[in-house]
């Protein structure tokens, strides 16, 4: 996106880990751990949209929830306003809740079907403010107009709204308390293209008008390219690469990013591009491969990759990558593509 980026950090994520125990048997003995998020550090700038991509199960939603402390962290810190969110007491956390919101994927499942739309949008106001019923109603009208919903329909139930309209209801609710930061977890993934573009425009407009910062989680690579200023690519609980959107999409540095981007089907039959077809499947996060987690599938893997884990480090100005042999030189991407053909 062509907007000017601020240099001020809004949220700093430091060495966040989230492990889920794997239990077995009658006594629920812990026999292992799913390392859903495994030591991620990241700064999200004020006013930016940070896109998070990666394949199913790589830990995107878990990271999003841990950042908001909707789930506890196994280790690490999330710094907001100079405070570690994960170390706050419950009353301080409650105050912070207003600043930090989430929009979920499922416009059907995440709205309570027995609540009126006005109750759904107004609920955070009821819980977090001292507003009167009349004030809340006025704010609900304002919010519905802001997200392009017909406010005269506020006393209806969610099932009377279309998928795109329900997603707008979810968005109206998430901005009710004037938040600073919103995690949008697959917020447009379930929508049809013609409706998806309406919601994407809405999110971009709200960001401009309200000065919001977004963590935009999605497996749809095109949507993320469109809306994000910077992008992080996750693989098996770790960040493989972070960089400004266009630089990353035009010149991926991590072999996994390159493979991911080359798999996007393009609506242009004249462009029969060479895909980098990866072998094998994503390994289990309970038992990640040694060294570089991507090495069993990486066309560029060498002995060092099996033994030594690459750390996320700056390879080009503003661009971080976790790979011993990043695709920095000209022609590196072409060489990678050539390797997967034979």
């Amino acid at each position: 996106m062509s907007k000017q980026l601020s240099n001020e950090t809004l949220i700093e994520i430091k060495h966040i880990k989230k492990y889920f125990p794997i239990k077995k048997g009658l006594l629920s003995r812990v026999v292992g751990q799913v390392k859903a998020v495994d030591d991620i550090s990241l700064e999200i700038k004020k006013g930016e949209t940070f896109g998070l991509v990666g394949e199913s199960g790589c830990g995107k939603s878990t990271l999003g929830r841990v950042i908001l402390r909707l789930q506890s962290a196994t280790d690490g810190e999330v710094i907001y306003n100079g405070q570690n969110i994960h170390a706050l007491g419950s009353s301080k956390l409650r105050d912070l809740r207003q600043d930090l919101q989430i929009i979920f994927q499922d416009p059907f499942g995440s709205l309570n079907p027995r609540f009126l739309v006005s109750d759904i949008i107004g609920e955070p106001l009821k819980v977090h403010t001292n507003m009167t019923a009349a004030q809340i109603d006025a704010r609900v009208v304002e919010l519905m107009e802001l997200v392009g919903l017909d406010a005269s329909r506020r006393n209806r139930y969610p099932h009377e709204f279309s998928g795109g309209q329900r997603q707008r209801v979810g968005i109206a609710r998430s901005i009710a308390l004037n938040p600073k930061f919103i995690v949008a977890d697959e917020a447009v993934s379930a929508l049809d293209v013609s409706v998806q573009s309406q919601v994407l425009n809405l999110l971009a407009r709200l960001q401009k008008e309200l000065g919001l910062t977004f963590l935009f989680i999605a497996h749809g690579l095109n949507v993320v390219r469109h809306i994000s200023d910077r992008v992080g690519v996750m693989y098996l609980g770790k960040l493989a690469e972070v960089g400004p959107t266009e630089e990353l999409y035009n010149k991926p540095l991590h072999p996994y990013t390159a493979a991911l981007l080359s798999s996007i089907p393009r609506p242009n039959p004249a462009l029969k591009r060479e895909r980098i077809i990866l072998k094998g499947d994503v390994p289990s996060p309970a038992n990640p491969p040694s060294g570089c987690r991507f090495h069993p599938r990486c066309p560029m893997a060498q002995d060092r990759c099996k033994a030594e884990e690459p750390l996320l480090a700056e390879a080009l100005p503003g661009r971080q990558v976790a790979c011993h042999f990043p695709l920095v030189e000209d022609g590196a991407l072409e060489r990678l593509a050539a390797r997967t053909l034979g």
Partner: protein
Amino acid sequence: MARKILEVNEMSAGFLVNKEIVKATDRISFNVEEGKTLCIVGESGSGKSVTSLAIMRLIDYAGGAILEGDITFNGASLPAKDQDEMRRIRGNQIAMIFQDPMSALNPVFTVGDQIAESLRLHQNKSDKDAMKEAVELLRQVGIPSPEVRAKQYPHELSGGMCQRVVIAIALACRPQLLIADEPTTALDVTVQAQILDLLQSLQKETGMAIILITHDMGVAAEVADRIVVMYAGGIMEEGSVEEIFAKPSHPYTVGLLKSIPGFEANDGNELYTIKGTIPRINQLPTGCRFHPRCEHAMDICRNQEPGFFQLGQDHKAACWLFEEHAAESKVSPARAAIEHGEVRV
């Protein structure tokens, strides 16, 4: 031109909803040729899955029926057949795969058994031969160490591998036509790329025809020979993949392509949007079913349904914008007007 293996002719299929018949597909026509891939694209509820259920005559079991028109397969009418005859066709000459591979597999049998079962059922193979061929099929669909995998259960395999198993089952009987309903929608992009590659190489080997249903224009561009664009039960535009993408003409097709984000850098402008939402099939607008959402709607569009106008040798659209110029040329002035934003009605 290759032989037409399937011809769908003015076919409507629908359901009884509140004692009223609603058409989920409305007089649709298209052909599928041997060795070729036809993609049916369209958004949710456009009637893509109902079309495939009608061809398979599975719609009878979903509480619906073919209401009018005909479907011929190898020259014989499918609606005229009884379900016993259809059962022999399904899984032998026509096979189908669905979006969710897990639901298509039986969790309590090994994947090898499930493929072998299909072979025994349709080809009267002995147990031993069937299992041997099952392993061969697993190899063919690109599953590593197929002897080991054949003895595993579906939950021991990833989603991508399960979809390969489903494809193996579908291929077991060497179908002439494979209908794949969103076969990669539930899969990650890198796995999707593997599965689309697999389908294309299997088609080359076996010469089967494929109907691939998708809502992803990108997938259609990569695999289709022909494309049918559906909207709210009707076909809006049909043509070769080259024509559809080089000269998209129906305002719905044009809008759909323009709404897709992220193929180029974001230029800071708003994304193109088609206003409004997809209508329910029991509340279709009069005239052109797209008119409440169409930027170019004219009076006639509100009252009278457009028929197809030929836009090129192999390309047609159901839209009044093409009425006058339809007969003349390949490059329709109306479409040029749309592209240049000149049409204001």
